[in-house]
């Protein structure tokens, strides 16, 4: 089961403090980067729930995010729904799609699961790339942001939009914690560790997997709807499998199965990307080498590495109750 420890609270505090400071201090470009980080953070939280706590390494979460973005764009620009309704529809549609994908893929394990989710992601990509309704490879433009003028907030201002995303991210984080602490989340972790045992205990394993995948998909859908509002233009590239791969990279870079780690990963990844692409056009090379180094070091990402050291330090101080608990939580290979 997921639980917080002092270090996790500390990192969360630092991250939210940093985000708030940035939201008020930064100029336009800084705010754009902040928003990018916040939206990516939602996507990788969704991925961490299924991959880190359920052992379901999904290569379709980028596509799910894309489905959310397209659903939002379609409902708000073509069907004349208000942005709020469109957002609800986007989340619902993505959730249902993810539930179906989770149900279909629940029988596969390991590399087959990865391939199966990849197939569904690519299916969505190919379909949207060619369907005239979705604008094909031209994408869709003219997307408007949520109207919060009732409470006196103008989301077309990038500072307000960044703060709005930050508030939603906080909500998503709390929801993730609630999901993982619920009976469903505990069953999921049980399934990850020993599927046979959970089945013998009378659990309907595929339902647990599908339900969690659906909930995770809803978060990805929200991230997608926000992406569409952030850039105000979407293209099929959003659904490509490299987007899902990058999300996985971010989760690993931060620390799988910690919820806090992926947030750290999102910050590190976006900053690394922007800093590197300013210096060299070959930033993928650096990202690739960093990724290889992180995986081969066998540390659980940046945050996992720090937490590992912290646990050792705590043990040294004799307060090993929380430490051993956290050590059990540390998930190595899915």
């Amino acid at each position: 089961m997921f639980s917080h420890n002092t270090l996790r609270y500390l990192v969360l505090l630092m991250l939210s403090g940093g985000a708030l400071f940035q939201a008020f201090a930064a100029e336009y470009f800084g705010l754009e980067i902040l928003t990018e980080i916040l939206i990516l953070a939602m996507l990788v939280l969704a991925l961490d729930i299924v991959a880190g706590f359920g052992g379901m390494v999904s290569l379709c979460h980028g596509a799910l995010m894309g489905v959310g973005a397209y659903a939002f764009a379609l409902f708000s620009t073509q069907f004349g729904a208000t942005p709020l309704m469109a957002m609800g529809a986007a989340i619902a549609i993505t959730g249902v799609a993810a539930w179906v994908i989770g149900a279909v893929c629940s029988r596969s394990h390991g590399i087959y699961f990865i391939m199966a989710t990849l197939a569904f992601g690519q299916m969505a990509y190919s379909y949207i790339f060619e369907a005239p309704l979705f604008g094909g490879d031209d994408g869709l433009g003219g997307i408007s942001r949520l109207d919060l003028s009732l409470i006196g907030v103008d989301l077309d201002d990038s500072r307000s939009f960044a703060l709005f995303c930050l508030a939603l991210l906080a909500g998503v984080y709390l929801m993730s914690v609630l999901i993982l602490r619920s009976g469903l989340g505990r069953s999921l972790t049980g399934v990850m560790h020993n599927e046979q045992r959970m089945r013998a205990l009378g659990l309907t394993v595929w339902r647990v997997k599908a339900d969690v995948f659906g909930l995770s998909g809803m978060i990805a859908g929200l991230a997608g709807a926000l992406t569409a509002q952030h850039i105000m233009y979407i293209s099929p590239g959003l659904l490509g499998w490299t987007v899902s791969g990058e999300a996985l990279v971010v989760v690993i870079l931060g620390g799988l199965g910690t919820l806090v780690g992926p947030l750290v990963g999102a910050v590190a990844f976006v900053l690394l990307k922007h800093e590197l692409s300013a210096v060299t056009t070959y930033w993928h090379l650096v990202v690739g080498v960093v990724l290889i180094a992180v995986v081969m070091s066998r540390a659980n990402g940046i945050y996992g590495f720090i937490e590992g050291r912290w646990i050792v330090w705590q043990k040294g101080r004799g307060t090993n109750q929380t430490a051993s608990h956290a050590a059990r939580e540390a998930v190595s290979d899915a």
Partner: protein
Amino acid sequence: MSHDLGFWILQALNALQLSMLLFLLSIGLTVIFGLMHFVNLAHGSLYALGAYFAASFAAVGGYWLGFFLAPVAVAGVGMLLYSGLIKRMRKSGPMAQVLVTFGLIFALLDLTRIFWGDLALGIAVPDVFQGRTAFLGVEYPTYRLFIIALGMAVLATLEFVLRRTQIGAMIRAGVDNDVMAACLGINVERLFFIVFCVGCALAGLAGAVAAPLLSVTPDMGLQILIPTLIVIVIGGLGSLKGAIAGSLIYGCVQTFGAVLAPQLASVLIYALLAAVLVIKPVGLFPAKG
């Protein structure tokens, strides 16, 4: 659209040519996986490397120099990757392997861009295979017939090596049960190294023969990877039969799908893959029952 016999033969040849190209790639990937449970997502990048090597060698000494040297060069790169990276990742779970090879895709993609630049390279079809040949009553590009023949030849050679020679028996034993094979005195470690190099060489060969058909671009490895993975997942990992069946299914569905149901063509193959995974999660002809 004329639906006479010649039209269908033409489409069948197109399907076969696509299948053979995918077969060259998937057979390396599948045997590497079957033998050592190693998932090499960077296999497509090796294919792209093969195409670049072929283009470079061809610029110096003509098409055939590239054709013969590109597989050797890619096998060399494979050797480096094996000793530096893959050997250490063999015992890790699929997740770690997927990620390491994913990082490798990023790295190799940019390395090819650094060495060869962003512009697409072209490579000419050798003089022998210029033009078209009348075949079964249709005119078909000779070079594409050559690819089909090459695929068949590789298939026959592999079939012979795997079924009739001692090393083939060792590979089959390793795929079926690597621990038992090691107990029987087979050096599975060395066997894997050899198979890995051959797999890389085949990827390089596929790149070299595909280079004149498609233009050589940095992202060609990314584009071919998904079809290759679909082939081995439909066919079942680790078996020659699976690689053949998967390649033929992919080639046919893709080619005939584009003719018969253009709206559905791109989704069709993914739907088929999903169906196979639901009905038989380990593929149609897996190495292990």
